């Protein structure tokens, strides 16, 4: 009884939030936090095994179908993440998007936030195709209005429109998917029973397309960078941390519930690897802090899908051992990415709030003004780069382990596992490069513009959620074995054959946790020792040495563009940077400039022309509709005549 009770409390909390949001910010925050807390408790109750699974069918009919809700461990993984980011983002918005700063949109923002969190939770517990679609559409629309909170900017409107259009292409696939599913099984009910139904396998491709758009699967990610960059930062955090994970949820969920086509695992792992590498290559070339973070989400979804794809391959080849490792790694990465990406977006929000710009080349030296934000952003940057002893490494390590085991095994899967391992490694190195750039260029060095000099540290409501997420990143890194049991329940929900009773974490995971803890302790000790030693020997401040140059200026520093120069150059065939160069002329040149911009290549070069083609066709068809009555009458007559001919012809047969 504990789960339905908690979920009812959560539903009440979010409903109260919708009512209170526009006018009563404090009560709204309290209601949202209560709702999120209840969601988290419900998810944990399922994950900890208090309640194995919750399944509820309504006795009444709503919209032609009886409601059917269901929460198992797999859904609970995503629900826990939603609860954490939903609550933390609400707290963050109290300082970040306050009534004082945004009198027009703050109330609206609170309302849609409650709608967003509640409908995402509905998607995660829906076990009926109609309700699933209903929640899916509502959450898409709620996110659209949240992106559009500050609707005066042209960029914001364009980004929101692109998001809405792309989402609906995805939703179209899902409509087709659920309708065909209902047609072939005779009901809208979802659940593991679908696995036994023959002929459902090809439907997986529809699901992959529909959910892939939402997940930001490369090359369907085109809406993602601009939407995440232009949305308010707490919205970016939940979009990047949770909303795209619902796409991942869809893929994981229906790969567990549907019979899979033979090629599914290969395709998913391939798409994941390509997405990871290309996504991070795009991220590295960005100069907009939030756009960089957004592209990094494309990479991380790729990493998750590598794990999911490996799990599908493990299942289809009867290899439970490494399939489970990869799946558990992927699910842990879902959490980890949600945590550190929300942390990073909150950090980027603090920077934006303090300086009014997201351009990396206009920032710099912010650590003196925003010491807490700088430290937490650095922590998040290390976590997202997958560096030990933080959480990002643990999940990537599990995925690597799955891939290595698949490679060692010498079966056919090794041909996928080995190249994917190497691509994952390269993506990791590029992620490190991207976040050394994002973190150090923004927070270290000299301020590049005057705005930075007047920056101010974020308020307590903004720092609090960041501290919580930073702490979570460290905690998962130091004690990963504690989560093993929870995630192995989720893996068992995905594939019941992989359930192992009362299972302990592999000893290597325990060892990794201990190694991490010792490392963290030693690193802290060494840093303190070195600091003390330096103080004892005498600390002097002087100009940056710069090889003896006595007047270093802020503009002489490396910028975002120059930092990405070398490695982004290797990907020029993919990135297609646009350059405008005006060379200096004459003895005393007056001006010279070089502007380099990495466009939304996939959107502008691939999807754009495609969309333009569709639009041209639609325009051509639209000529039929011109408002001239005579022609409409002609259409009617022609139509009737055609009908009559058909009837005559049928009769003559």
């Amino acid at each position, binding site marked *: 009884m504990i789960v339905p009770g908690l979920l009812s409390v959560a539903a009440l909390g979010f409903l109260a939030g919708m009512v209170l949001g526009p006018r009563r910010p404090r009560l709204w925050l309290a209601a949202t936090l209560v709702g999120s807390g209840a969601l988290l408790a419900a998810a944990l109750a399922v994950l900890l095994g208090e309640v194995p699974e919750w399944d509820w069918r309504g006795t009444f009919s709503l919209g032609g179908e009886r409601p059917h809700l269901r929460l198992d461990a797999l859904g609970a993984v995503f629900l826990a993440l939603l609860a954490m980011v939903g609550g933390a983002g609400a707290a963050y918005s109290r300082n970040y998007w306050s009534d004082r700063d945004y009198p027009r949109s703050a109330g609206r923002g609170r309302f849609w936030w409650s709608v967003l969190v509640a409908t995402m939770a509905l998607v995660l517990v829906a076990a009926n195709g109609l309700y699933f679609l209903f929640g899916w559409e509502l959450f898409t629309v709620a996110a659209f209005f949240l992106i559009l909170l500050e609707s005066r900017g042209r960029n914001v409107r364009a980004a929101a429109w692109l998001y809405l259009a792309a989402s609906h292409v995805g939703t179209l696939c899902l409509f087709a998917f659920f309708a065909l599913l209902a047609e072939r099984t005779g009901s809208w009910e979802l659940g593991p029973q679908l696995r036994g139904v023959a002929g459902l396998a090809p439907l997986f491709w529809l699901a992959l397309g529909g959910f892939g758009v939402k997940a930001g699967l490369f090359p369907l990610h085109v809406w993602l960078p601009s939407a995440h960059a232009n949305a308010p930062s707490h919205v970016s955090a939940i979009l990047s941390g949770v909303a795209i994970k619902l796409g991942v949820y869809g893929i994981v969920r229906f790969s567990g519930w549907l019979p899979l086509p033979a090629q599914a695992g290969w395709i998913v792992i391939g798409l994941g690897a390509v997405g990871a590498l290309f996504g991070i290559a795009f991220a590295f070339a960005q100069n907009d802090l939030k756009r960089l973070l957004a592209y990094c989400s494309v990479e991380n979804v790729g990493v998750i899908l590598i794990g999911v794809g490996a799990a599908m391959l493990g299942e289809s080849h009867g290899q439970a051992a490494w399939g489970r490792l990869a799946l558990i790694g992927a699910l842990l990465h879902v959490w980890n990415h949600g945590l550190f990406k929300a942390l990073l977006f909150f950090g980027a929000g603090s920077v934006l709030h303090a300086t009014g710009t997201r351009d990396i080349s206009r920032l710099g030296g912010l650590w003196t003004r925003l010491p807490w934000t700088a430290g937490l952003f650095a922590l998040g940057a290390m976590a997202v780069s997958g*560096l030990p002893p933080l959480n990002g490494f643990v999940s990537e390590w599990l995925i690597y382990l799955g891939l290595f085991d698949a490679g060692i095994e*010498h079966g056919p899967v090794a041909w996928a596992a080995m190249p994917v*391992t190497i691509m994952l490694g*390269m993506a990791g190195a590029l992620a490190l490069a991207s976040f050394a750039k994002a973190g150090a260029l923004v927070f270290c*060095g000299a301020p590049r513009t005057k705005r930075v000099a007047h920056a101010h540290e974020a308020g307590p409501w903004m720092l609090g959620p960041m501290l919580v997420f930073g702490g979570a990143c460290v905690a998962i890194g130091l004690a990963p074995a504690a989560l093993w049991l929870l995630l192995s329940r989720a893996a068992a929900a995905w594939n019941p054959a992989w359930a192992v009773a009362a299972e302990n974490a592999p000893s290597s995971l325990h060892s990794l946790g201990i190694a991490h803890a010792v490392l963290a302790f030693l690193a802290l000790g060494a840093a303190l020792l070195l600091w003390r030693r330096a103080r004892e020997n005498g600390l002097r401040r002087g*100009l940056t*040495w*710069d090889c003896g140059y006595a007047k270093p200026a802020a503009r002489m520093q490396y910028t975002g563009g120059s930092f990405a120069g070398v490695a982004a150059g290797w990907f020029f065939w993919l990135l297609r940077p646009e350059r405008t160069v005006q060379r200096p002329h004459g003895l005393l040149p007056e001006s010279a400039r070089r502007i380099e911009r990495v466009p939304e290549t996939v959107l502008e070069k691939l999807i754009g022309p495609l969309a333009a083609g569709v639009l041209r066709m639609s325009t051509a068809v639209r000529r039929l509709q011109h408002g001239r009555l005579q022609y409409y009458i002609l259409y009617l007559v022609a139509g009737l005549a055609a009908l009559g001919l058909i009837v005559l012809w049928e009769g003559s047969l």
Partner: protein
Amino acid sequence: MMMTFVGIVLRLALWLLLAPLLPGIINKVKAWVAGRRGPPVLQLYYDLARLWKKGVVLSTLASPGFIAAPAVGWVAVVGAALLLPLGPAAAGVSFRGDVLLLIYLLALARFCTVWAALETGSAFEGMGSVREVSYAVLTEAAILAAVLSLCVHTGGLSLTTILAPSAGAGAALLAAGLFTVLLAENCRVPFDDPNTHLELTMIHEAMILDHSGPPLAAILHGASVKLLLFSVLLVQAVLPLGALPPLLATAALAGGVLATTVGVGLVESLLARFAFKQVPFLLTLAFVLCLFALLVAWKGGAA
């Protein structure tokens, strides 16, 4: 429990004390080839002792991270070294998948160096950082291919199990690939020139221009440990130490590391630094060598 602890401390002492010898040997070899007397082999020990006592000049822009980063980087490299078995004396710590921890600890060290370099806002250090993080993308691929080849060959996933037997038929390929990676990762000629006086052409040295005193000592010592780490890794990957009796294996390991070090010195004496445009090609070559080693291991395993 006590025994493992003592074992770890002994190994730690060995790593920390022996590592600064390697740069000394390299310099001696270079001097010998050039017909000079050269600095004493123990020069780095003297330098470290001197730096440890010196004061620190901090850039006005630097945050506390500027001093913390060398410390964390040093711990990361030494931690990675402790994961590596030493011939018959196996590793201090060993578990399945520790090889990935080793690779990512080196990445952590790299992150720290780059972060500290960018703290100063110097264009030279920016330049060095860019080169470091960019070339690392290719070396990472090469290292992973090399590790995969060892794993596929031996069927193991911890450093102790994959390094005990030799690399088998692909040993020569792996040796060439890993030696190139060693040169690149430790910023030696032909990738980087640690002795040039022109900061524009350097990678590692350009990144640590602003460090002084004890933090510089930590960086220099960490770099020497990293060099020893790669030499030990290379020798164990290639030579079948597990098949030899313990004494002979130890001697082979020591001899192999010495030979690698002399090899680095010889490369440095006989080769000029490559232009930066050529560096990616050389690294790709290293990657391809490791990839072929992987294919050989795959074929060998299937037979």
